[in-house]
């Protein structure tokens, strides 16, 4: 581990190898409703895992169960191989940053950071030194004496991060710590969290409903749906090989087009495309195609341009096919389609994920 001001004074802590966390078949019921339904996830030592999913999918519950703030109905959670189900929150040695501002309003920023050390009966001089070092780590060295109401939202979350890390916990838990912040601060703090996490090598579970955030910072992303993990993988894997249309839709933007699967190929508008899952049975399907996997061509599928917007490094164009289907394309900024213009499209042939239409009608998707 690298030499850090935080770790130096505590040789035992800095010698600690990263922590492994394992959820096995965890079930959490709230009055009959299953917030976690056989949840399995392993966090490797020093890994940064993002838990991504729509609101209500059970992300917070998973985090709280690991922190011991909620009990489990069934299943086990181990930290470094030791079952922690009987361990109270205060003994689990976790650092947690909450979604809502959680600084103690009656204490200054520095005293907030010192709180965990005080609970561990660290001597005042060392306490103060370590709190100052931790505040310096998040770039707030000169805010030791400020109170929460004198800090901006971003600063409050930085202090909360310093407070969570100063005790050198085994695992860092972040529950949408950036959701209350404005866009610019959000990106800044997000990158800073990642930098600090990499420096400390602390195993981290980061909950978010923002796919950009998850893809940008995590080693691996676990996408949750209805109390379960739908797919775990590196950001690249999730984006380029989504296991289900839900993932394809949730991670990045996707076009959904009706088609058929025939002998391990998906057919849309007369084009045969490879499948991410070659075992897909034949039949009518809905195909998810990334906007960058559709291109303009000299001939092919005819369409009318509806709108085109400049997004900085790329341009996104909406077109309408003859049958009324709306598609999104993503392409270089130098191509500037005009609204009303007739264009021709072709598919790049990247593998696609599909969803059987029977399943679609059984569980209708929100548009």
């Amino acid at each position, binding site marked *: 581990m690298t030499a850090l001001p935080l770790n130096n004074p505590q040789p035992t802590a800095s010698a600690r190898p990263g922590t492994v966390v394992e959820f096995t078949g965890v079930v959490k019921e709230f009055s009959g409703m299953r917030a976690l339904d056989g949840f399995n996830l392993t966090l490797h030592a020093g890994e940064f895992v993002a838990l991504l999913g729509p609101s209500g999918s059970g992300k917070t519950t998973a985090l709280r169960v690991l922190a011991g*703030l909620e009990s489990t109905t069934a299943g086990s959670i181990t930290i470094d191989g030791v079952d922690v189900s009987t361990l109270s929150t205060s003994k689990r040695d976790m650092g947690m940053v*909450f979604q*809502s501002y959680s600084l103690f309003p*009656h204490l*200054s920023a520095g005293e907030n950071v010192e*709180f*965990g050390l005080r609970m561990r009966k660290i001597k005042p001089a060392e306490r103060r030194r370590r709190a100052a070092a931790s505040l310096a780590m998040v770039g707030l060295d*000169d805010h030791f004496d400020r109170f929460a*109401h004198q800090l901006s939202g971003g600063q409050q979350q930085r202090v909360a991060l310093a407070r969570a890390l100063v005790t050198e916990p085994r695992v860092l838990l972040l529950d949408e710590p950036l959701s209350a912040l404005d866009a610019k601060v959000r990106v800044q703090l997000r990158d800073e969290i990642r930098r600090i996490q990499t420096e400390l090598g602390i195993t981290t579970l980061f909950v978010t409903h923002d796919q950009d955030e998850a893809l940008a910072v995590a080693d691996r992303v676990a996408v949750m749906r209805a109390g379960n993990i739908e797919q775990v993988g590196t950001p690249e894997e999730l984006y380029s090989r989504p296991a289900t249309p839900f993932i394809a839709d949730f991670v990045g933007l996707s076009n959904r087009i009706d088609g058929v699967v025939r002998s391990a190929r998906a057919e849309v508008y007369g084009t045969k495309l490879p499948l991410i899952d070659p075992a897909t049975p034949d039949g009518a399907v809905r195909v998810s195609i990334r906007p960058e996997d559709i291109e303009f061509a000299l001939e092919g599928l005819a369409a009318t341009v509806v709108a085109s917007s400049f997004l900085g490094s790329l341009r996104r164009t909406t077109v309408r096919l003859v049958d009324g289907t709306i598609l999104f394309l993503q392409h270089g900024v130098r191509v500037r389609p005009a609204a009303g213009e007739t264009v021709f499209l072709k598919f790049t042939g990247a593998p696609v994920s599909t969803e059987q239409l029977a399943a679609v009608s059984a569980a209708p998707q929100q548009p």
Partner: protein
Amino acid sequence: MSGGFTAGGVAHAPSRTVRTVILGLVGLIFAVPIVAMIEFTLRAGLVGGYNVDRWVALFQSGFTGVYRPVLVALGNSVALAIGTVVIVLLLLVPTMLLVHIRFPRLRRGLEFICILPITIPAIVLVVGLAPVYAIVARLLGSGVWTLAFAYGITVLPFAYRAIQSNLDGVDVKTLTEAARTLGAGWGSILVRVLVPNLRRGILAGAFIAVAVVLGEFTIASLLNRVNLQTALVVVSKVDPYTAVILSLLALAFAFLLLLVIGRLGAPRTRTSRRRTTVKGPA
């Protein structure tokens, strides 16, 4: 934000003039009876004119003789006030915290129970309490202090509201959970997190308890216990002027008492001084 710690900051606060007028009117309503009482004690008999003879006489007698029972009664009332505050602090505050943090579903029930006493007239309460106190007297003796149990019930609605409004303004759940993840046990959480942030509500609750107990007459009278108000009534039958002087003194005493409690509970001045010293980039 969720802190509820910052002073002021009300978006649509009334203007300065409106505030002054309201404050003046309220002050007037409170001042009229007090001024009238003072005027009454200064009257020089039926012929008119004013003097301070009665005040002088009372102080020269050194509260001995006929007025001695009033002093004893004042002592009783203060003891009762302390007992009632202890009940609020040791029973009501922990119960409310427990319900708020661990059993939020019980909140409606607790609120109903705590507000209930305000809807029951003291006379009715005494009818119910009389047989209870027959048992209490057998078990604990018939000391005046046992009245604190009854007063603990009568102050419930006021103390509950005061503490609950503070509780609603602080994100107790998140603060508690943050403290737990930082390694704090329930004792530390109570002392280091909850009490400091709920100080205002708890203090207000204690204030109201003291004020209610010092002014209580019905229950003490009907249960045949002596407190400040029952003693004053006895005096007023003999000497209405002196009774009013004693009432005024009791009022001043209660005021001082509340002032002292407020002082004791005020946040450390250290923090408010410190917060202005550091100025860094925002």
